[in-house]
């Protein structure tokens, strides 16, 4: 199973060079034309239309669009976070892997992470943001909602974002590749006064360490 970051990076590595390549070609062409075709020299002017060339060009643009769409659609099919029912039913889970469930609740201007299997609730305490603790290498199923306005759950290092709407539940699956402390998560959808401060920390543990943490904190609500 690949993670969202890998999926993003694979697609990025195709799109970005194409964008940069086209950018460089058109910048160079523009500058070359300006230098080469400055007024003064008596050159024959080109015709106002080359219809065959134009249509060949338009056709090749369409081919580029189709190619980009094919790789984007493939990446979407591979997206482990995709909330497709098959994913949630465990179709993409490796044998024996038990998914971890987390309920994410967004509110002005805090996050709350509930672990229903362990009775744990992690919320912001004072000025300290809520802590998201997850195991590495195991699918984590999120069920996300908001209790007031629209927010968005974003972990930049995972290259993943999902909005949280009041009255709606968004489901997605993330797999964190390796243990460690990520640079954190934040609200990406503008949500009013303290939007800038609506962050959370992300700690990824070894699966065994995570189980120990969850058992030790069973029933704890903070």
């Amino acid at each position, binding site marked *: 199973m690949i993670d969202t970051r890998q999926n993003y990076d694979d697609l990025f590595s195709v799109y970005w060079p194409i964008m940069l390549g086209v950018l460089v070609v058109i910048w160079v062409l523009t500058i070359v*034309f300006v230098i080469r075709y400055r007024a003064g020299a008596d050159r024959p002017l080109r015709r*106002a239309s*080359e219809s065959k060339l134009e249509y060949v060009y338009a056709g090749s643009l369409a081919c580029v669009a189709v190619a980009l769409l094919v790789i*984007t659609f493939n990446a979407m099919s591979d997206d482990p976070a995709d909330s497709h029912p098959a994913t949630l039913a465990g179709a993409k889970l490796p044998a024996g892997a038990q998914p971890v469930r987390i309920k994410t609740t967004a509110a002005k201007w805090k996050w709350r992470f509930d672990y229903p299997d362990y009775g744990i609730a992690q919320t912001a305490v004072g000025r300290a943001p809520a802590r998201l603790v997850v195991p590495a290498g195991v699918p984590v199923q999120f069920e996300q909602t908001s209790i007031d306005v*629209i927010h*968005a759950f974003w972990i*930049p290092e995972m290259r993943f974002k*999902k909005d949280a709407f009041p009255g709606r539940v968004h489901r997605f699956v993330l797999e964190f590749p390796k243990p460690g402390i990520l640079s954190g998560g934040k609200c990406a959808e503008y949500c009013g*006064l303290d939007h*800038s401060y609506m962050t959370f920390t992300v700690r990824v543990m070894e699966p065994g360490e995570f189980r120990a943490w969850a058992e030790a904190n069973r029933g704890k609500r903070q």
Partner: protein
Amino acid sequence: MTTRTASAPRRRTGPIEAFAGTDHKRIGLAAGGVGFAFFLLAGLLAMLMRAELAGPGMQVVSENTYNQVFTIHGSTMFYLFATPASLAIGIYLVPLQIGATGIQWPRAALTGVWMLIAGGLIMWGGFLTSSGAAAGGWTAFDPLSDTPSSPGPGMDYWIIGVVLSAVAATVWAWCLLATIVRRRTPGMTLLRMPLLSWGVLVACLMVVASFPALILAMVLLYIDRHLGGVFNPPDGALAYQHLFWFYGHPVVYVVFFPWVGAVAETVATFSGTRFFGYRLTVLSLLAFAALSMSVWGHHMFTEDAVANRYFSLTSTALLVPAGIEYFGLLGTMFRGRIRLAAPMLFALGFVLLFLIGGLTGIFVGSPELDYHVHDSYFIVAHFHYTLFGGTVFGMFAAIYLWFPKVTGRLLGETLARWHFALMFVGALLAFVPMFFLGHEGMPRRVANYTDPGNWETLNIVASIGGYVIFVSIVLFLVNVFRSLRTGRPAGPDPWQGQTLEWAAPSPPPRGNFTGPLPPVRSYAPLLDLREEAAAR
């Protein structure tokens, strides 16, 4: 008549005539002038934001003020500047370009100017209330914009301002469409219309098709705020976004196409040749407009609420008409006779800078990539290259090109070059760092951030870029005020123009043309005349 144009007289215009005359040129200038004034005001708000963001922590304004500032910056730029300016250029120039003596329904168009002024003053009036101006972003998503989350009159004023400006734009669009349909001079078929007029026509089609959705959304939001019961959970917030983005995506092309047309004419004029691939470019403008009505869902990729593949398909397909337009622009320069006067410099700036916005637009049209960069500074960078690199550079190309037509005097070339050089460098400094900030995880619309390493440096560079742009705009204003008094007299056609407005005196009198119009046998009738004279 020739003596009048040679001495470039400035007929004194009283304030009543400037804002209550029914000549289409007066209406266009008033609409464009009001729009430009709001551009300057919104630019000052941007300077305030760049001051605050230059370092982590809160230094200049409070979070609450910052939220009002970015809301009014974006709202002013879209509702009070970009849309009115993009239609104002049509109100001034379309009748001249199609050989008409005026605009259809001038009193309705004049009413639009007053609605824009009233709407702008009401929206900005929010700053005078005790709870401040609206702070819901230019999109004012429900439920953030409902009464519990946004109490106070600022949000109501904002809604009224948006409705007034949107109704004004809709009125202008109908006036312009009627003018194009009914008042073209004999010989001026649709496929002989100059590209600026085509850009305006296509923009007007999108206005009449999409702005009603905005007006409806605003009316419903107002009702929801005062009576409740409209945008209820679970799906009310989504319904609002569908209505809003059904307007909100086409509008970015409304504020773009007229300037594509202006840049196309600038490039053709200063390449000494007619535009390359005119027919296919017109076709691509129409295809662009049609497609643009089907892409709104790409603003909602992260919401689990729309068919992401469908909206990715329509959004990516836009690269075909956009690529055709670039082909036409570069093809026109290829083997042309290029003169690098001020309008051409800004047109080249448009070509180079809009490209960055266009290419990153294809990038964010892929949902998998958008899941990361959506609502981050990457998006802020992307749309500033489309709106600043595109709309604003295109607008300055148009201003430098048509200023002599409007005033009878040329703008100073030296200051113009400084204006261009600083604005171009400023646009790169200000917005390129934002791509990196967004990709590294800086959300948009934040008043504050903690620096994980290089964000302060990137933000300082962006702020410096912003102030460089500010200086360039000051130089432009100095240039305008100097040139209005002492600029070189332009005569009717200072640039070897190709379209009918250059056959009229500068400035054109009421009724526009003083002699018989040249015959219209192509989309470049004045170029035809010169070529015939050379062949003889």
